[in-house]
């Protein structure tokens, strides 16, 4: 999502009007997921892509120019036969719907650009947001920001209400997509935005170093927490975004936990594990993993249970952390942990 906001900012400096092309529906396989965007500026600048490039994107560019000329949005259906797909090297052969809307960057008040600025503000505050757009009339939009009043409308209160339920579900899955609403099966595209996934690592030991480097390469924001200044150093963690030294459980209380937050405890020491888990498990991040054996995990859970922690929270603890890939070295353990977080992120984790 950062990339989207960066693209808008870049274009706003150079273009007055752009066409925003959004991949809203895919049927069959597709190289990009719903929500992929391409921007075509009035002055000819192009950013992003709704496919893997080539002829399909070329057609989107041509359609975008028509949208800019007419100032009317349009929904473009691209029905690729398998032969065509083969011919143009588009190996996925899926059918696509792309919504193309004109965006006035010079006069943002009240238009789509303004809507995205509102979304960016929400995301910067750590909240998730969904823009629901009617594909029959893309001027009908409903903005749903986590924990805030909705704004806009899809046409009727009943549709708005149904859209809020769908948005809540899609926020949880972190997945954009088109859903039919109401008795007339109105197609509505739900564009989901949220804070970037964050990995919080408690413990600055030897497993944490490759864990943070790999997480950085995977595009996660990373935070390392430890009480030991000799371990939590920039030299040991050159890629880390934040290095926090202090009482770990106290720092844990100050951090934000969302459905995009992954927490891994690598200290392998009850003095950190117990107090940090008391804070982190009730905050319900996307994932909490604990380095250690099943036996050690059972003992930690037993202690927390004796202290009054709810069984349902304890069941959220992944211990041993990571997928069972036979990991041995610190780097392999880091890989197994991140493999599990990727599985959770894409809805395939347990």
């Amino acid at each position, binding site marked *: 999502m950062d990339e989207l906001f960066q693209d808008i900012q870049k274009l706003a400096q150079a273009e007055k009007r752009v066409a925003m092309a959004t991949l809203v529906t895919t049927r069959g396989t597709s190289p990009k997921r719903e929500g992929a965007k391409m921007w075509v500026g009035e002055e000819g600048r192009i950013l992003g892509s709704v496919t893997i490039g080539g002829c399909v994107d070329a057609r989107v560019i041509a359609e975008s120019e028509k949208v800019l000329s007419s100032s009317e949005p349009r929904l473009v259906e691209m029905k690729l036969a398998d032969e065509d797909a083969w011919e143009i090297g588009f190996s996925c052969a899926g059918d696509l719907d792309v919504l193309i809307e004109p965006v006035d960057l010079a006069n943002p008040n009240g238009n789509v650009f303004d809507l995205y600025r509102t979304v960016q503000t929400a995301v910067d505050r750590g909240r998730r947001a969904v823009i629901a757009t009617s594909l029959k009339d893309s001027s009908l939009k409903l903005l749903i920001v986590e924990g805030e009043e909705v704004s806009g409308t899809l046409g009727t209160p009943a549709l708005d209400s149904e859209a809020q339920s769908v948005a809540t579900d899609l926020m949880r899955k972190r997945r954009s997509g088109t859903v039919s609403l109401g008795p007339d099966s109105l197609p509505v595209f739900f564009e989901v935005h949220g804070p970037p996934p964050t990995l919080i690592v408690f413990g600055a030991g030897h497993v944490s170093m490759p864990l943070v480097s790999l997480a950085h390469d995977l595009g996660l924001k990373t935070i390392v927490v*430890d*009480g*030991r*200044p*000799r*371990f939590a150093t920039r030299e040991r963690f050159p890629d880390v975004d934040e290095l926090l030294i*202090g*009482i*770990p*459980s*106290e720092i844990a209380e100050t951090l934000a936990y969302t459905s995009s937050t992954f927490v891994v405890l690598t*200290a392998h*020491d*009850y*003095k*950190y594990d117990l*107090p*940090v888990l008391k804070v982190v498990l009730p905050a319900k991040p996307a994932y909490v993993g604990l380095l250690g054996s099943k036996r050690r995990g059972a003992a930690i859970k037993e202690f927390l249970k*004796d*202290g009054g922690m709810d069984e349902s929270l304890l069941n959220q603890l992944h211990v041993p952390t990571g997928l069972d890939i036979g990991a041995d070295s610190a780097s392999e353990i880091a890989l197994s942990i991140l493999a599990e977080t990727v599985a959770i992120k894409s809805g395939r984790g347990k």
Partner: protein
Amino acid sequence: MPVLYSDLLLDHFRHPRNYGSLEAPDVSYEAFNPLCGDRIRIEVKLDNEIISEARFKGDGCAISMAAASLLTELIVGKEMISDEELISALQSDIQPARIQCAILPLTALRDGLEHR
């Protein structure tokens, strides 16, 4: 002969007394063990150099947490207690290698009083 970890030590570890912070403390000081990672912050209020209230926060081993909890009880009404008094109050067989853990909260308090 004291046991390795007395019931009293374990009780203070599992149910720490005076855990938390004071509003406007006269002394707030953090001490840590650079290798094992125990980190304890002691906060106290003073009345003519006599400690009238004490709180602590921290993440540490059973010995250091229990020692901090006990210290906040023992220190009220006094200016200071000795290392021996605190270690003895734990009623446990604290091995030489773990003395550092037991006196970490006292170190925080002494350094805090000195640096105020």
